[in-house]
């Protein structure tokens, strides 16, 4: 990217210098062509470079999404009752080594040995909410709906 922009900049400056030094129409036309060529080279190079980066990001995103889709669901023990309860936002998971609590379906805990505990217990343990699944966001919305 730096090389392409450097070449484009040099061509534009060269075009400017040629154009400034003469009043002859053919030379001015040449100078304009050189400068326009530099602009076209730069824009084309930047677009190619950006598309290359976009392709890499898309590949990584696909890798992350496919990986999370095929990952084993978290091993969440029953919470609250003997027959177990389906995981909801009020059931938040973590492990003793983690400093954050997550939703059960958060991809950051997929396939990991985590335990479900109440929000109060997580907070007592000094854990913070996960910034990816944002377990607090749903609770805030629920709290707003309940009060509003």
């Amino acid at each position, binding site marked *: 990217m730096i090389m392409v922009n450097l070449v*484009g900049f040099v061509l534009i400056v060269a*075009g*400017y210098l040629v154009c400034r030094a003469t009043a002859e129409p053919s030379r001015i036309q040449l*100078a304009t062509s050189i400068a326009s060529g*530099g602009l076209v080279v730069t824009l084309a190079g*930047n677009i190619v470079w950006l598309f290359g980066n976009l392709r890499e990001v898309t590949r990584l995103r696909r*890798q992350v999404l496919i990986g999370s889709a095929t*990952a084993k669901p978290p091993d969440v023990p029953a919470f609250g009752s003997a027959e177990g309860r389906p995981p909801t936002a009020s059931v938040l998971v973590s*492990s003793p080594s983690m400093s954050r609590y997550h939703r059960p379906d958060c991809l950051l805990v*997929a396939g990991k040995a985590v335990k479900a505990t109440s929000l109060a217990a997580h907070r007592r343990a000094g854990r913070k909410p996960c910034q990816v699944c944002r377990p607090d966001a749903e609770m805030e919305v629920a709290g707003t709906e309940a009060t509003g």
Partner: protein
Amino acid sequence: MDFLTIFRVLWDRLAAWVTVLAGLIAVILGIVGVRDNVYVAAQMPYVISGGILGLFLLGLGATLWLSADLHDQWRVLLEIRDQRDAPAEGSREPTTSNAR
């Protein structure tokens, strides 16, 4: 947050803004220069230095801005992938340093 910290975190976006501003200034100066000259031969240097160089800088600024967005996205995706692939014991927790 002091200026150095802001610069370290947002240097790519600052560079994009500076480049776009320089491009706009070049275009405006080119327009002013062309307006003050009646001869085409005298106008052409302004067209090149103002118009073409201005477009070059605007394109470079847009590229830098998009590149910064892609870079942020790349870092977050890498972090998510590393978190997911890390074993449960002793695993790193997601940090908020990249969240914007």
